[in-house]
């Protein structure tokens, strides 16, 4: 059975080893079928290292999502509710570019900011979970803001005078419109979580993929693929998909609970 735990630290094998060590390496062909079995075995065995990696993956991505949501939802809603926004097109273009930021570029940027010579070097965050959360927050934030903005903007603009006529305060109007846009807001949250949990470039650079400390599912997949353990890498990939699926399912459930039941 494949195991991620190791009593001794395993250095990254050189690339040329792939295929040479029959006990560790798989043939890429035919591994997809085995991956599912291996993933189930890994989960069922309660592999300590896997659980640590899974836990850290959720910790980093959910923390980044929380920070991005706390900042991004009010900001996106405000942008969506503002009629006269100077340089609206430019702001939107910048934001939409941010939605497609290459993670490795964000990683490099955060790395430079946090490196000893960088402006935030004194924080000593590099190669820690905090650096990883910071990088994923930067990746998630434009998605939360941009998609919330679009969702709020798509709500019928005539709803505002109607709510005003029904006696709503400004705050109540904003809250009601945000709730009307809930499907889009939920999509913003889901997209931001997806971007955070699936990226590898940023966490690899600023976290360093240190076993037991900053290794998450995506960086573990890169490592196991380099080691030639394709079935294990696929199994980790399946775990990642499963985690993403469960989180999205939970998000949708939370959204549905606030939606009225259908009549028919």
């Amino acid at each position, binding site marked *: 059975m494949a195991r991620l735990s190791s009593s001794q630290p395993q250095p990254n094998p050189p690339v040329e080893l792939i295929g040479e060590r029959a006990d560790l390496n798989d043939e890429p062909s035919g591994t997809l079928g085995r991956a599912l079995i291996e993933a189930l075995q890994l989960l069922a065995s309660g592999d300590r290292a896997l659980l640590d990696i899974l836990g850290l993956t959720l910790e980093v991505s959910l923390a980044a999502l929380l920070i991005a949501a706390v900042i991004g939802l009010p900001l996106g809603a405000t942008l969506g509710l503002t009629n006269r926004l100077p340089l609206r097109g430019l702001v939107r273009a910048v934001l939409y570019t941010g939605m497609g930021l290459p993670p490795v570029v964000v990683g490099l940027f955060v790395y430079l900011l946090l490196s000893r010579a960088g402006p935030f070097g004194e924080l000593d965050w590099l190669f820690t979970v905090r650096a990883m959360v910071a990088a994923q927050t930067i990746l998630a934030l434009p998605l939360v803001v941009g998609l919330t903005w679009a969702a709020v903007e798509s709500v019928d603009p*005539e709803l505002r*005078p109607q709510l005003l*006529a029904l*006696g709503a305060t400004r705050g109540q109007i904003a809250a009601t419109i945000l709730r009307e846009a809930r499907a889009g807001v939920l999509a913003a949250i889901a997209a931001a979580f997806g971007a955070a949990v699936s990226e590898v470039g940023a966490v690899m650079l600023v976290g360093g993929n240190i076993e037991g400390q900053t290794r998450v599912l995506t960086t573990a997949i890169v490592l196991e693929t380099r080691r030639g353990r394709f079935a294990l890498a696929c199994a980790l990939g399946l775990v990642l998909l499963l985690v993403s699926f469960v989180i999205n399912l939970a998000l949708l459930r939370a959204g549905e609970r606030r939606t*009225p039941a*259908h*009549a028919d």
Partner: protein
Amino acid sequence: MPIDPVLKLTDLQRRYAGRLVVDVPGLEIRGGELLAIVGPSGSGKSTLLRLLGGLETPDQGRIFYRDRPTVPPLPLAIRRETTMVFQHPRLLSRSVSDNVGIGLRLRGIGRDAAKTRIDAMLKQVGLEALAEAPAQRLSGGEKQRVALARALVFEPTVLLLDEPTANLDPHNVSLIEDLISRERRQRPLTIVLVTHNVFQARRLADRCALLLGGRLVEVSDTESFFQSPADARVTAFVRGEMVY
């Protein structure tokens, strides 16, 4: 019926891009009356109504609410005594009862107290069977009944109706008109109804006003408005002979 003016306009003007769309030197709306404002499309009826509801700010002039001059944005307490039903009901994508209760929730009325009032109101508008249905799935007539119910449920002092039946079939028009009449019999409610339908004005209103090019041509009791109007333009309009 109380006669004191609930709403009074003085020297009211509103311009769009320099063009004068409302120009009313004076108008008093009496407590408990139903005043119908008729006029062709683009005559400024809806703008006048939005000014009365505090949804627009006049460029000049004042609106008095029970002799208190109001300066937009209107104080919340005054705004919450007035409400408006629009031509197109803008319903929330929630259940029918949630939509009817929105005004109560905005006023911080507790869930239980609200439910009693919502249920009673749904019964009044004949939608109790659809209470939990998604509002977006209702027919046009049902939606407008929800819009009327959510305006009446918090018992406003002034109800502003902007062409509330313009998109409805005759059956639904008469349902809405019956609801308005029934509500007026139950409690003192001041209504300003904007309509291009002179027959509706004649059926419902205590007084009628003709608005042309943003100006009031004549305001008089419904009977004299239709039987013996002072202005020839009123005669032409009510007979459908006006060319505009």
